[in-house]
């Protein structure tokens, strides 16, 4: 081979190699686009921007719920390379099994993708967070996301405000994957019913990160970013001072208080006892605390004021008085004699015979059994069932026997039997007034929730209408946009029939069974009740509104297994009305003290004796 030939051999070798490299470049740069993707995954990190959840205030502008920073450890599984697991676990304070389990859990969650950030460990405590930040470079793929958790300023109104918790797979599916695993969602109370208002809108930010996972800036000047929209603030109709007093008064008792502003339907207080500190549902211990509360035999998670059905007792006597007048079988001067009861329904001693107003004042059982009988056996109707249906509809128009549509979850409908119900029990045409006579005094197959009781009281106070009770007054300064909360639901009773009943209720407080509830200078209309409880001691019931003219507050108080209405429920209602109307509740220290110290949670409490008669 001559010398130029040898040179050409070398040139051929050079060119051959160049061609091999160019072919390789074709594959790397033109054919295979996985490298481009990898490059983007290298540097592009999708960061979710969590908006601040809306704050919650009471009706006077007192802050009730705010946000607090928490630190979630997130991971992009695909970017986890060569992790020193031992060190990682040490920094986080977990075991290797935990580590594996967490990864497995993440992989099973809805919306999992290796390139998508997933939640690895939630809510690092501050020292762990600090330690982890130091080691962040050692753990590629991991980063800490700062989020906010709720803080409840006061340990009360738990059932109103509810709590937030992590989304379930079902929540994620239902939300069309708006939520990601580890996100918070309102689980009960206002947090749940106004979730979409409070949560705002999550934002997305694409940032460039370097090889050490350090942020280097925004991707394309942020043109693909979506800003987060902060959640809207909510002003509750709750008066926090009133709420707090109610919870204080019901401490060591089982029961409910619901207070409503009659003219607006705004719920002023919604007290459940036993209750819990809403802050138990904040932080890492959320799950454990939840299980503890769930297993608590006193059922602190049960939303009594909204859901617990009680025998309505005396509220029925008031409604019966109105129905009787409307149906034309009763007028203010109708009088019935009381012979210590009516049939098998007993009564307590009082003067007899009585007219309507007097019968309300002394709560005569016999009188209202008579009224009931005359309503149901009204000859105006062809059959008893028609008369009963008419009676049923009157009751229903006060919001009994159905859900009212409060803006909180967990509302119960109570029980108001229809004629069909009795047909089923007794057979068609085989029952009449006397068969169901106990309904006349609010016993029997009846269930009414404290909310319904307060609402019916408000309807009486309004002389004939009620507005659906609701807990949210304004959203971001604007009136609650739900038009339903502006509607007046007129009852089927003419306004003209109310004054005599209201006078009777006024007498109850001035001279009747609830004199203990008197507040100097305020005209209170109320009615005590002692709801017969088939499972134990009777429930102490009181409902009232005040002032008599232009009512500002309607309230229903039920203290379970506490005996007479006047013993516990009436003083509690009185103290709360005083608080709301005057801003003070300490003008009657002895009464206040007795209420606060009363402990009715012990089974062998001798404070009240078992009563079989109704007052």
């Amino acid at each position: 081979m001559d010398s130029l030939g040898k040179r050409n051999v070398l040139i051929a070798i050079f060119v051959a190699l160049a061609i091999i490299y160019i072919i390789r470049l074709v594959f790397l740069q033109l054919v295979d686009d996985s490298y481009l993707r990898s490059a983007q995954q290298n540097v592009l990190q999708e960061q979710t921007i969590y908006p601040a959840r809306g704050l919650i205030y009471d009706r006077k502008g007192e802050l009730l719920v705010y946000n607090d920073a928490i630190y979630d450890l997130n991971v992009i599984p695909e970017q986890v390379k060569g992790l020193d697991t031992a060190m990682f676990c040490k920094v986080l304070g977990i075991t290797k099994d935990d580590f594996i389990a967490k990864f497995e859990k993440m992989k099973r969650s809805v919306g999992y993708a290796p390139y998508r950030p997933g939640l690895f460990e939630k809510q690092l405590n501050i020292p762990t967070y600090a330690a982890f930040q130091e080691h962040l470079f050692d753990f590629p793929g991991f980063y800490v996301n700062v989020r906010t958790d709720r803080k409840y300023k006061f340990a009360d109104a738990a059932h109103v405000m509810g709590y937030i918790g992590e989304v379930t797979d079902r929540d994620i599916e239902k939300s069309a994957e708006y939520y990601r695993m580890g996100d918070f969602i309102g689980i009960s109370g206002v947090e749940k019913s106004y979730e979409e208002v409070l949560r705002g809108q999550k934002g997305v930010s694409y940032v460039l990160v370097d090889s050490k996972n350090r942020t280097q800036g925004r991707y394309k000047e942020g043109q693909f970013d979506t800003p987060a929209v902060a959640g809207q603030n909510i002003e509750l109709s709750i008066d926090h001072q009133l709420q707090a007093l109610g919870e204080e008064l019901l401490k060591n008792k089982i029961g409910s208080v619901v207070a409503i502003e009659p003219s607006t339907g705004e719920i002023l207080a919604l007290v459940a006892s036993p209750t819990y500190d809403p802050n138990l549902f904040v932080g890492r211990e959320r799950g454990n605390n939840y299980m503890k509360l769930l297993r608590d035999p006193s059922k602190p998670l049960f939303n009594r004021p909204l859901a617990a059905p009680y025998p309505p007792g005396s509220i029925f006597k008031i409604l019966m008085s109105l129905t009787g007048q409307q149906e034309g079988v009763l007028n203010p001067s109708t009088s019935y004699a009381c012979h210590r009861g009516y049939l098998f329904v007993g009564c307590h001693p009082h003067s007899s015979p009585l007219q309507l107003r007097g019968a309300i004042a002394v709560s005569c059982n016999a009188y209202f059994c008579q009224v009931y009988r005359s309503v149901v056996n009204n000859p105006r109707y062809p059959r008893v069932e028609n008369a009963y249906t008419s009676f049923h509809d009157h009751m229903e128009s006060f919001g009994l026997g159905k859900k009212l549509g409060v803006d909180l979850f967990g509302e119960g409908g109570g029980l108001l039997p229809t004629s069909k119900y009795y047909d089923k029990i007794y057979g068609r045409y085989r029952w009449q007034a006397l068969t169901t006579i106990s309904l006349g005094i609010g016993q029997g197959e009846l269930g009414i929730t404290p909310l319904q009781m307060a609402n019916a009281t408000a309807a009486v106070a309004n002389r004939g209408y009620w507005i659906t009770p609701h807990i949210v007054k304004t959203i971001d300064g604007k009136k609650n946009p739900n038009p339903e909360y502006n509607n007046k639901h007129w009852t089927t009773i003419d306004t003209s029939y109310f004054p005599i009943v209201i006078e009777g209720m006024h007498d109850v407080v001035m001279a009747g069974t609830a004199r203990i509830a008197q507040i100097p200078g305020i005209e209170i209309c109320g009615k005590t009740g002692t709801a017969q409880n088939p499972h134990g001691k009777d429930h102490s019931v009181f409902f009232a509104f005040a002032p008599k003219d232009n009512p500002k507050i309607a309230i229903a108080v039920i203290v379970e297994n506490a005996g007479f209405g006047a013993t516990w429920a009436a003083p509690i209602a009185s103290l709360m009305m005083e608080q709301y109307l005057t801003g003070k509740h300490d003008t009657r220290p002895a009464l206040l003290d007795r209420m606060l110290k009363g402990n009715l949670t012990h089974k062998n409490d001798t404070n009240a004796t078992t009563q079989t008669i109704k007052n």
Partner: protein
Amino acid sequence: MIQTQQPKPSKIDWLTLVLYYAFVIAGLLCIYASVYKDTHPMIYDTSMNYGKQVIWIAIASFLGMLILLVDEKFFYAFSYPIYVLTILLLIAVLLLGTTVKGSSSWIEIGGFRMQPAEFAKFGTSLALARYLGGFNIKFSDRKVQYISGAMILLPMVIILLQNETGSALVFASFIFMLYREGLPGYFLFLGFMMALFGVLALVIPSLYLIIAIAVFAGLLTLMIRRNRQNLLIVAGVAILACGYVSSIGYAFENILQPHQKSRINVLLGKEVDLKGAGYNVQQSKIAIGSGGLVGKGFLEGTQNKFRFVPEQSTDFIFCTIGEEYGFVGSVLFVMLYILLLWRILVMAERQRQKFNRIYGYCVASILFFHFAINIGMTLGLLPVIGIPLPFFSYGGSSLLSFTILLFIFIRLDANRQNELRGAFE
């Protein structure tokens, strides 16, 4: 008869010079891009690599000009002293050097570090050219073969002892020059086959390879004339091949250092180590692959800018080209590089003096070897061997040594019309 003729400017090979500066400037831009930070936007900021590189380019240009002004006989006359000097420097470094990243091949002078191994390349080239270009020297002589072999192996071994495997391997590139000067062609083939079988031996269990060799040898004996001599050759080659193949595994396990083993394993796909040895290659491929057809544009390469590619301004500088200038830029680069090599070979062949020609072949061989290994490594085709890309990679030693290497040849070429060297010896 001493000539003191100065080179006339027209005789300087302008194409080579233009290519040199094109590479150096492009390299500087790549270095700038690879360490670019908004906070240090000035290219002559000497606290940054690119700022230093500007200084190195200035020094290299000055040095290059100096070389062009020096009498070309200087290099002939001083070739042996330069060779000896570089060998002495290598030994000195071995004994006194600073250890950087596991290799003790650096000496520090002032604030700058120098790597004498880089300078040994042109030192050895000069010495080889002088020796093989001498009168009555024929490469076919055994003695000549041994002496030139020893001249190559001496610096190679010292550099190996410095733990600088990549630089040592560069000396193997002289095989191309030797081929031109009379080394039988089958040595090139042999070298290629050894490399091929070496890789195969690492991937495939050596037993299978030995069986394959035996079968191949058996088939070969059926096809050739079965005389005694041929059979002996086939058998001998086959036995040597088997021995070689089985020794590879042993050498791999016992001679190579762990990081070298893992680099090879990663390349062969035997080991997935995306944090360690594989990380470089993976990130390098990602950077190049993400460039697409026309690249992301100057300073827009995210992989380089955000330090995903390690050693990006030195050994992995090609990633910046691939990412920011894409397929078009990469191919242009490869073609320009081959153009330079081709040009050097053309220039070498037009020399009237053997010394010049041999030196030219040495330059081309060294540059080609660097190019082949460096680009092959960044493309994930070859194991990670840390050698720079001439004229592109950041680093004073490498830029200065390649400049000297090339400019000596430009200087020699400028004077190519001179009479044969022997005339005044």
